């Protein structure tokens, strides 16, 4: 047939492709490896959940039958309703509170901004359930302020009230960070023009500030809602008999071994997260489009009354944060709450030594270090390959998608997927189940997206032609990666490592499905001790984690400074 002999260069033939240089093959293999990693430790476990939800106990396909069973179980529907309204209430309280705080930090001349910011971010250093434990000491049956609660007509802190208050405290720093970055993006020129036209402060707020932060507010509200609805620790500790979706998953899977129903609830938990992710994605794009490169950064001018008011407000919030942390510290040091409050270290000794939690604490450190090392390496190499190498559009598109996916997957859902996927006897990776290695990999995947976005931002700031220049000089890309890209990006690398470390220290949700007695973590131990009624050692353990995280933050900061001095000398040069 003549047609098959038509040369390729003829019009209509397939487009030309360049022959691959051997260095490009290296890059392609590396992309394939990272995609494979994310498929095995993210995509397949998630698919395993879907499969569980669509099959009966014998593995036969039953369609949506499990969902129908769920919809006919009144107790489970009650949990769904509970989760929804509690999350909505927490969102409605936290977002305005955090907005005020963020506004004070970015748009006023309030003194001690660094200190206020630091205090507000403290809850990030401990597992979220620290706030629940503190709350029990404040308002529990033996709480210091129990009578205040009684006076308000609230019977007990256990239940919805406790969950809402504890979540507000624990989620506050997450909401705050989003709003700070939203409010930092301001064009001073808009305010100058408004001033030139004699606009009142209130009108400026409603016509410039609020519209400018609109997308940040949407994003903050969605993230807050999702974090609350998927949080497991707080409802477990202070929820009492008040059931929510997150605790249902745990009860169904671990307690009743009803995997199908567990999978159905997990999918329900996935919905708000996926919605948040989708909306956030659109919102982010609009937010960046709003601010042009020519914008002039806004700096607040002093205004006595406003600054004083915001100082008072932030002091109040900071006081609440400190009361939360302080009570946990105080209670963990009290000999025998509430009868003997003389300080002693016995809960630390009991928790760590007698209860064999020292191993747990050591496991936590080990896992956090592993997560920081492995996570930073995988995330940064993945981001580099995605941003700076060429070819293989399909594979790189898959990588881009998989890297963003963990943001939309609550830890609880990921952990459940791991059980279904890795605990299957047929899985060749079955040997990993219950090991610290799998828990490390799970944590890397769980927190992948934030690290990835940090790395991408750092890489995007580099000149896009470095790789082209290297190729023209016949220098393989990995040499340029090592000599140029990596040294320039070290500050971002330290940030990513710290983020992984702190989160690995404090995470509960995914890991709670994966540990064995040998690989128990400190954060899990808190949960176990609380279940056993040992609240004081639990508090001690939470404080210890917070202390370790704080110490790690300081160490990472010093490391960052040291690396900065060694590799960033070129930044400090002047003409």
């Amino acid at each position, binding site marked *: 047939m003549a047609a098959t002999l038509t040369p390729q260069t003829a019009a209509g033939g397939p487009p030309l492709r360049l022959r691959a240089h051997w260095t490009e093959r290296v890059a392609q293999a590396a992309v394939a490896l990272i995609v494979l990693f994310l498929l095995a430790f993210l995509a397949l476990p998630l698919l395993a959940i879907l499969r569980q939800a669509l099959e009966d106990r014998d593995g036969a396909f039953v369609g949506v039958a499990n969902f129908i069973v769920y919809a006919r179980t009144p107790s489970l529907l009650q949990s769904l309703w509970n989760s929804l309204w509690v999350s909505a209430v927490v969102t409605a309280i936290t977002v305005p509170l955090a907005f005020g705080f963020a506004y004070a930090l970015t748009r006023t001349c309030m003194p001690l901004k660094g200190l206020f910011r630091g205090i507000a971010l403290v809850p990030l250093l401990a597992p979220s359930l620290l706030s629940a434990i503190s709350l029990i000491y404040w308002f529990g049956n033996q709480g210091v302020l129990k009578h205040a609660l009684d006076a308000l007509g609230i019977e007990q802190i256990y239940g919805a009230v406790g969950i809402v208050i504890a979540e507000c405290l624990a989620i506050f720093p997450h909401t705050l960070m989003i709003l700070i970055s939203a409010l930092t993006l301001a064009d001073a020129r808009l305010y100058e023009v408004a001033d030139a036209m004699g606009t009142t402060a209130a009108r400026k707020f409603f016509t410039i500030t609020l519209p400018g932060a609109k997308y940040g507010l949407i994003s903050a509200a969605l993230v807050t809602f999702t974090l609350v609805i998927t949080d497991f620790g707080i409802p477990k500790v202070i929820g009492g008999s008040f059931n929510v979706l997150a605790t249902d998953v745990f009860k169904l899977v671990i307690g009743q071994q009803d995997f199908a129903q567990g999978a159905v609830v997990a999918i329900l938990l996935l919905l708000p997260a996926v919605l948040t992710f989708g909306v956030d994605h659109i919102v982010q794009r609009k937010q960046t489009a709003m601010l042009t490169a020519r914008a002039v950064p806004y700096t607040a001018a002093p205004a006595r009354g406003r600054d004083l008011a915001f100082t008072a407000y932030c002091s109040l919030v900071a006081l609440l944060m400190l009361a939360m942390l302080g009570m946990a510290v105080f209670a963990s040091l009290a000999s025998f709450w509430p009868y003997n409050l003389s300080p002693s270290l016995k809960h630390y000794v009991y928790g760590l030594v007698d209860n064999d939690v020292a191993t747990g604490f050591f496991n936590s450190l080990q896992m956090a270090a592993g997560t920081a090392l492995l996570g930073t390496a995988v995330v940064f190499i993945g981001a580099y390959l995605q941003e700076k190498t060429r070819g293989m559009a399909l594979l790189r598109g898959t990588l881009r998608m998989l890297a963003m996916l963990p943001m939309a997957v609550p830890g609880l859902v990921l952990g459940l997927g791991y059980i279904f996927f890795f605990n299957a006897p047929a899985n060749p990776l079955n040997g990993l189940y219950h090991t610290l290695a799998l828990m490390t990999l799970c944590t890397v995947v769980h927190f992948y997206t934030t690290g990835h976005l940090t790395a991408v931002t750092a890489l995007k700031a580099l000149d896009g032609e470095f790789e082209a220049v290297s190729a023209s*000089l016949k220098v393989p890309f990995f040499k340029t990666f090592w000599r140029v890209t990596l040294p320039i990006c070290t500050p971002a690398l330290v940030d990513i490592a710290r983020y992984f470390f702190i989160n690995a220290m404090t995470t509960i949700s995914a890991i709670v499905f994966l540990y064995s007695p040998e690989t128990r973590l400190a954060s899990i131990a808190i949960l176990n001790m609380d279940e056993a009624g040992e609240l004081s050692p639990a508090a001690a353990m939470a404080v210890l984690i917070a202390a370790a995280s704080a110490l790690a933050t300081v160490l990472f900061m010093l490391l960052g400074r040291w690396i900065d001095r060694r590799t960033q000398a070129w930044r400090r040069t002047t003409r």
Partner: protein
Amino acid sequence: MPSRSPAAAPAISSASSPERSLELRGIHKAFGSFVALQHIDLAVHKGEFICFLGPSGCGKTTLLRVIAGLEVQTRGEIRQNGRDISRLPPADRDYGIVFQSYALFPNLSVADNVSYGLVNRRLPRAQIRQRVTELVQLVGLPGSEGKYPAQLSGGQQQRIALARALATSPGLLLLDEPLSALDALERVRLRQEIRALQQELGVTTIMVTHDQEEALAVADRIVVMNQGAIEQVGSPQEVYREPASPFVADFVGKVNVLPGRVRQGRLELGSLVLPLAGAGAAGPDREVRVYLRPEDVLARPIDEGDPHVFDGAIEKIEFLGSYCHVHLAAPAFAPQGLIVYLSLNYLAERSLAIGSTLRLRLLQERVRVF
């Protein structure tokens, strides 16, 4: 009347069969349904300085990137020194490249930047150091080896980027708008240096630019591009004096566009009737557009009997230093008005101001008809 007579052929192509450094044949590039390049055929001679000139989006940068292997042509062939490089990855081609953004490695010193490609060739250290010294001297920055890029001005950084691209003695130098990020004075200075350096080293060079003045000043030949296609290839004089298309006449230099009519082999321009020679005279009678550059109107000498003499009234004078853009009302043939260049001295000598009338002469052999 202009026609492309053989006498006006560019010096380069009239040289005895120059060696071809680079050949592009039928290059075509599409991004989805958008055609970025079409029917690009071009031969670049050894040691030649070529400029790709055109408005933004005309495909000039895409063509440069295709030559560098940073973009892949949809079809077409590229040959360098007779070797087919159409499908070679960038690392297997032979060129040095300089970008608008300099793309200097900010964490490496000037010496490390310049020697970046040399180190990979496993040359002895002393030899590398010697070559670096030589190169920074060549680009006029001796003694800057220990500095970081951030310590240099934009122009200095671009000189170092040039030294880095030349370090491995490539057979082809590609410059992608290398001067666009610099201020006006530095731009002129560096373009002269680049031209001098190119002539000294004899390296075949392709520079992409949107600045016609830059292209006219440095190029041996200019490739004028528009909408992904080549409009004209020629020496700066050719492109300026004998634009092959209305687009080229319009894009390169300033031009007055006037309505005219060809009748019986002569050009009627309002009340003026000019003889028409060459291809322009042939063909049926028709409406044409007449392109006339502002400097092709002379104030003297005026021979009163000359048929190309006309009267104009000054409507506006735009002062530009030694000469002025003078906007004239010339109802005889230019209903939209006419812009001419007149020297400041002439205006002063004749005490011309807005409202004055003056007598001028068309340089009829420069008039182009499309």
